[in-house]
């Protein structure tokens, strides 16, 4: 499974930006539409898509998309 590719698709859908290409280094500062309310929708969509649940503590320290993807991979491998 290409987690980054799936996450990119989720970002495009939630942020309604068909041209958006994210990398592991992408942060909210790089994407205009990635505001606090859209962040909630992004996390909800990720939890639904990958059929997993995060805690508030688990997502609090994500610094970029790469750390988000690593957390997803860790959950999926558990």
């Amino acid at each position, binding site marked *: 499974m290409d987690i980054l590719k799936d996450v990119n698709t989720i970002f495009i859908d939630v942020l309604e930006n068909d041209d958006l290409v994210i990398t592991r280094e992408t942060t909210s500062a790089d994407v205009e539409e990635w505001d606090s*309310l859209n*962040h*909630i*929708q992004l*996390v*909800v969509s990720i*939890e639904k898509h990958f059929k997993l*649940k*995060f*805690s*508030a503590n*688990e*997502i609090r320290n994500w610094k970029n998309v790469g750390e988000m993807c690593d957390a997803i991979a860790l959950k999926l491998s558990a």
Partner: protein
Amino acid sequence: MQVGDKYQHEFEVSSEIYNGFLGIFNDRNPLHTEKSFANAKGFKDVVMHGNILNGFVSYFVGELLPTKDVMIIQQEIKFHSPVFLADTLSFSATQSAIFESVNAVEFKFEFINKTDNRKVAKGKLLIGLI
């Protein structure tokens, strides 16, 4: 607030609500204001604005949930059948998910018209607990 929690309420589409919506938003499309036009389109009377139902959804979120610390993050609604003046709608909402990571809950809701027991609309809500 737990998954499976269910909330129910009845809303009447009163003349006060209809006229208030017309007066505030000024959507006077003839489907909503001219009986002859609505009849010609196959409706028995003028059709109420669909977005009146969104006002009822707002009431549910703001007034019927057990906490006032709420904010709508996302809302979807699909309309299935028309509503007419003085119809009474039975609203029900069921909590379908909780997202502890972002302090949000999801509800699925529907409106049933008590006049003919038809489903009027259904939708989903994502609510942030602020």
